[in-house]
C-alpha cells in the first residue's frame, strides 16, 4: 500500500543548522497493516510521516501509495489518499468553524469543492450518528465552534474526520501525546475501532511503550533517520514494554560507546 524507497531529507543543507533528518528510509506497508513507529527524539519519525503526507518534497527516493508514484505530488493532492491526525490538537481542526462545518470539510477530502451548500441535512444526520458514538455529548453541540472544545474532544473529532472518507493511508503522529491519560485512552480506543472497522492501513508514531506493545501488527524503531528494527507477526505479538525499553537502553549504551571510542581515538591521534 505504502512504499517508502530510500528516502533522504536534509533540512537547511549547507548551513550550520544542517539536519540530516532522513538518511535512506526504506519501508513497505502491506494493505491493511497497522504499523507503530517508535524512536528517540529527533530520530526522524515525524519527518517520515511529513514526507509521506507531502509537507515537503524529499531530496532523494520514491514514495508510492497504492502503486501510484506520489513523490512529486503537492500536499493537498496527496490528501485525497491520506487521512491525518497531528500531535497538536489545534492542528487538525478549524477553531472558529462549527463541528458540523469541520466535518463537512472532511467529507469532501479529495473531492472538488463547488457552490453546493456545505451542510446538507443528510450529511448532518450522518455526522450526528458518528459523533454520538464518541459518547462525549458532542452530538448536541454540532453548531458550536470547535475552538470551544477540549483537546481530547478535538482530537477525537479530528480522528473521526480523518477516517470519514476511508483513506488509503492513515497517519497518526503522537496523536495522544498532548492529552490527559483518560482522554488519551479514549482516543486510542477510538483509533483501534476505526482502524479495525475499515481495515485502514495505518502508520502511527508513539512514545508510549504501552501503546507500542499493545497496538498494531508491526513495530518499527527509527534511529538517526533510519529504520533500525522491524518486528512483525509473532515477534511483534510477543513484545512487551520492558523489551522495548531494553532496546532503547541498548541504543543508549552503543551511543555512549561510540562517543567514548571517538574520544579515545581523538586522544590517540589529535
Amino acid at each position, binding site marked *: 500500500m505504502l512504499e517508502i524507497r530510500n528516502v533522504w531529507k536534509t533540512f537547511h543543507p549547507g548551513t550550520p543548522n544542517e539536519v540530516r533528518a532522513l538518511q535512506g528510509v526504506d519501508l513497505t506497508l502491506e494493505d491493511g497493516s497497522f504499523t507503530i513507529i517508535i524512536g528517540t527524539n529527533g530520530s526522524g519519525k515525524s519527518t517520515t510521516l511529513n514526507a509521506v*503526507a507531502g509537507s515537503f518534497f524529499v531530496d532523494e527516493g520514491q514514495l508510492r501509495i497504492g502503486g501510484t508514484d506520489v513523490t512529486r505530488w*503537492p*500536499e493537498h*493532492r496527496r490528501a485525497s489518499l491520506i487521512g*491525518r491526525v497531528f500531535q497538536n490538537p489545534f492542528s487538525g481542526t478549524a477553531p472558529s468553524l462549527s463541528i458540523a462545518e469541520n466535518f463537512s470539510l472532511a467529507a*469532501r477530502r479529495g473531492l472538488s*469543492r463547488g*457552490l453546493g*451548500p456545505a451542510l446538507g441535512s443528510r450529511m448532518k444526520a450522518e455526522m450526528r450518528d458518528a459523533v454520538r458514538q464518541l459518547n462525549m455529548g458532542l452530538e448536541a453541540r454540532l453548531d458550536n465552534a470547535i475552538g470551544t472544545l477540549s483537546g481530547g474532544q478535538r482530537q477525537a473529532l479530528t480522528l473521526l474526520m480523518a477516517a470519514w472518507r476511508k483513506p488509503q493511508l492513515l497517519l497518526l503522529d503522537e496523536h495522544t501525546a498532548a492529552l490527559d491519560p483518560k482522554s488519551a485512552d479514549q482516543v486510542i480506543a477510538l483509533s483501534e475501532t476505526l482502524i479495525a472497522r475499515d481495515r485502514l492501513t495505518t502508520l502511527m508514531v508513539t512514545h508510549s511503550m504501552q501503546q507500542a506493545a499493545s497496538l498494531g501488527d508491526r513495530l518499527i524503531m527509527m534511529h538517526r533517520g533510519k529504520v533500525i528494527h522491524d518486528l512483525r507477526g509473532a515477534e511483534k505479538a510477543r513484545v512487551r514494554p520492558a523489551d522495548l525499553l531494553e532496546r532503547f537502553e541498548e541504543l543508549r549504551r552503543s551511543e555512549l560507546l561510540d562517543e567514548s571510542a571517538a574520544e579515545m581515538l581523538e586522544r590517540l591521534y589529535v
Partner: protein
Amino acid sequence: MNLLLGAAAIGFILSLLALGVYVSFRIFEFSDITAEGSITTGAAIAAVLLTHGWAPLTATFAGALGGMCAGTVTGLLATRCGINRLLSGILTMTALYSINLRIMGKSNIPLTNDHTMVSQAEAWGKAAFGKSTLAIWGWEVAVRDASLLIMVPALILVVCLALYFFLHTNLGTAMRATGDNAQMIRALGVDDGVMVVFGLALSNGLIALGGALLAQYQGFADVQMGIGMVVWGLASVIIGEALVGTRKLGYAITGTVMGSVLFRLLVAVALRWGLNPNDLKLITAAFVLAALIVPNALKSLKQKPRSLTHA
C-alpha cells in the same frame, strides 16, 4: 437631518469596503492594503464607462470586476511568488495608482450629467413620491436622499445575503477554514494558495463595488479617493465587532454593515461640531490603534493583578 441621511447613505455604500476588509483581514487574516487602489479602480472603471453611456448596472459591475483582478494579482504575488503579504498589497496598490490614472485619463472624472445608479434611484423616487421634497416627522427631506436610503440598503442586503450564502457553500467553507488553519485545510485536500487568491479577489471585488457606487453617489471619481480607506474599513469592522460580537458569520456581516453606518454618522456629527476634516484620518487611525491595543492591555492587566497592587 439631511446631513445624517447623507452620512447614512455613504455608510451603507462604504459597508461594501468594510465587508471586503472583513473578508481579507478577519476571514483570511491577510493584511491586504490593495483596497486603497482597488476602491479607486472600481470608481474609475465605472466612471469612464458611465461617461461613455454604458448602463449604470453594467458599469458598476465592471468596476467590481476590476477590483477582483487587482485582488487576484495580490493573491498570486503572495502565494505563488512567495512575496511578503503586506508587500504584495503595497506593490499592487502602487501599480494601481498608475493604472487608475490610465483608465481615467485624468485625475478626476465628474459624473454630474451622466445617467448613473444614483440618478436612476432619484428618478424612481420622484416618480414614486411625485415631488422633490418629503416631510418626514416634520423634517424636510430631499427625495434624492430618501430614495437612496431605500435603494442602497436594499442593494447592500442583496450583497450581504449573497456573501453569507457563498461563505456557507463547500468552497466558501474551505475559504474560511484556510484563514483559520491552513495546515488542516491542506491535509483535507485543498490548495490553500488558491483559496487565498479567491479570497482576495472576493474582498477587492466588494471593495471596488463600493468604490463604483461611491463615485456615483458623490458625483465624481478621483484618483486620490482610496487614501486611508483600509483604516476606515477596519474601523467599521471593529465597531461592528463591538456592537454584535464575532461568534457567528451572520452577526459578523450584519455588525460590519452597522459599524460602517455608525462610523459615518459619528464622523458627520464630529464634523458638524467643528472637527477639522483634515484631522479625520489621524483620529480614525488613533481609534483603530486603540482598538488594537486596548483589549491586549486589558488582558495583561487581568493576568497580572499583583503588579497592579504593587504599582
